[in-house]
């Protein structure tokens, strides 16, 4: 298995994970990495550096796409309902079409990711509150038909009453569709996902609002659309961008070392790109004024920002599960604190139970 070659310069192509001292601090690759980690590098032990968790088998783009599209759909349904209430026909049609397309694609992505796609309907065998995927499947099963009816009636102009009911229904389910995926990824043993569970739903709904606002801003590209038509979309995008950014920051700061994958490596690049695009898009949307091109471009940036964040969160989970450090170090810390607390409480009960 070893690919190592003996050369004049010594051993080359050595596999560090096999030969490294278990738990030794990692070397920082590249000379330009002057950045110091926030948390001191923790010493820990592992079994030949192998991860403790099995990495998720969820695939990209299916699952990050599913997270992104669910948020977009949920936000767009809210935008659609608001547009109907305030008489914004163009924005409403865009939002309804977008919501339906995103909802369907989200479901398609989920089914495509299954190991046995033909058995998707087994999801409907039960309703389990302990499984956000079960709850989500039922949510989508209600949401997608409603969003579809809303979109079709809006585009054809037929059955306006049924259309209004469907729009209201999809707006009612929309926030749930945007938020439940946060519980879905948090309800795992993956440290970066699980530890962030209090903030993750706010990151997701913020991101969904931002994406839907971005979609609404794209409407500005349609000739003859005044800034009044897209103003709520702009507002929604700004609220969403602020919420996503604030919740994400808070999550990273609170969870400490398990947040590392959100700022390092491939996942970190996605997250950073998402933050930069959100900032750019938000600024563009706020300052676009009467420029239709600027508004539409900002919308595109905001949509991309939301997608980049989801990709970053997804990849961060894979990285988090793939490194035993994130599993062992916080758990050790927890045990140490518990032992300390027990000591403070009085003499420890005898025995070595549970390690």
């Amino acid at each position, binding site marked *: 298995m070893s690919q190592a070659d003996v050369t004049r310069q010594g051993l080359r192509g050595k596999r560090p994970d096999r030969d490294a001292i278990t738990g030794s601090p990692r070397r920082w690759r590249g000379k330009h990495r002057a950045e110091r980690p926030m948390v001191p590098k923790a010493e820990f*032990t592992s079994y030949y550096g*192998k991860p403790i968790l099995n990495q*998720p088998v969820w695939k990209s783009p299916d699952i990050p796409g599913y997270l992104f599209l669910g948020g977009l759909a949920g936000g767009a349904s809210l935008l659609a309902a*608001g547009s109907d209430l305030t008489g914004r026909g163009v924005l409403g049609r865009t939002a309804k079409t977008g919501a339906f397309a995103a909802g369907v694609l989200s479901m398609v992505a989920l089914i495509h990711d299954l190991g046995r796609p033909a058995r998707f309907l087994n999801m409907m065998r*039960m309703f389990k509150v302990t499984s956000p995927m079960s709850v989500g499947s039922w949510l989508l099963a209600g949401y997608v038909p409603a969003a579809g009816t809303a979109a079709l009636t809006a585009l054809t102009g037929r059955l306006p009453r049924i259309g209004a009911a469907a729009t209201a229904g999809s707006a009612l389910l929309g*926030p*749930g569709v945007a*938020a439940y995926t946060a519980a879905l990824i948090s309800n795992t043993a993956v440290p970066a996902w699980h530890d962030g569970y209090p903030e993750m739903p706010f990151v997701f709904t913020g991101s969904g609002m931002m994406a839907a606002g971005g979609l609404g801003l794209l409407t500005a590209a349609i000739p003859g659309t005044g800034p009044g038509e897209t103003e709520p979309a702009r507002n929604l995008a700004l609220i969403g961008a602020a919420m996503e950014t604030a919740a994400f920051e808070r999550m990273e700061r609170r969870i400490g070392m398990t947040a590392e994958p959100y700022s390092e490596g491939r996942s970190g690049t996605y997250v950073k790109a998402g933050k930069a695009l959100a900032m750019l898009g938000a600024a563009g949307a706020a300052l676009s004024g009467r420029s239709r091109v600027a508004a539409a471009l900002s919308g595109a940036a905001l949509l991309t920002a939301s997608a980049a964040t989801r990709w970053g969160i997804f990849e961060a989970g894979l990285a988090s599960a793939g490194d035993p450090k994130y*599993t062992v170090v916080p758990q050790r810390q927890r045990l140490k604190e518990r032992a300390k607390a027990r000591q403070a409480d009085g003499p420890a009960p005898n025995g070595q139970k549970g390690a």
Partner: protein
Amino acid sequence: MSVDGERAVTWLPEIRTGGFRGALYGETDPADVDGYPDHPPRMGFFTDTSVCIGCKACEVACKEWNHVPEDGLNLLGMSYDNTGGLGADTWRHVAFIEQRKPVGVQDAGVRHDGTDVLTLAPEGSGTPPEEAAMTPTTPGGAADQLRWLMASDVCKHCTHAACLDVCPTGALMRTEFGTVVVQEDVCNGCGYCIPACPYGVIDQRKGDGRAWKCTLCYDRVSDGMEPACAKACPTNSIQFGPLDELRERADHRVTELLAAGVADARLYGRDPGDGVGGDGAFFLLLDEPEVYGLPPDPVVTTRDIPSMWRHVGAAAAVMAAGAAAAFAASILGGQR
């Protein structure tokens, strides 16, 4: 779930709140929680790694009995470990850890009658955590100071099993013996159980798409036989039986070892008060759990699910409010 073994795939969804009915956390009898009225005692494994000789009979027996496909004949460079870790096609995994630690004299000769292991034991085999960071290639230590740990890992059949809790199809079920089994005719390969498991046990089989793991030989146990791995184990390192009995036996064994001076002996997964409510398959280890690739303090993720849903609800409400504010602002702004 079906109680008497008939696995009817009904298209009428079963509303399941079992998790809440039976507490998501803490000490409980899982078969009670899952609604088996008269069930046999909870069965499990006690794997005493102090007598494991690394023969891998358990790995082989498991593969043969359960028709687990071959998944590579690998030279991993990890001592005698050729399987790497638990997964879809490895339901028993023997870990090998080589440490530069004095365990007394390792005599290549065959005569051991002059060696009393119990008097040698006080010389210490314990590894303080700060010294535990070592592998076979770590320099230092005298050449004759080698400790070779072996341990046969397996699915823990947790009291509170995250894989089972998160399974959206109900393919994962609790048996009347309190064990956790995947029904391969129901699993649709959604993969949710895989990152949910705090031990990294269950995985997706390549080319098959479904999730697979140890069944604690549900078929054999149902017929009053012991699981294949326990049957094959020549040193009784793998012991099968009612969990209560096993716990008693393990407590006795660890006390014995500690009294003999094996200061690092400890039970892992035995405590019903731990993060998963205790394991149905627990271990006696001779070093920290992470040395064997086990998490030191696993917690079932669904312990936090009530709080997660509360946060999801709040975030969804905030989203709806945000949309309302977006439209209200444009009305107040007088644009329309």
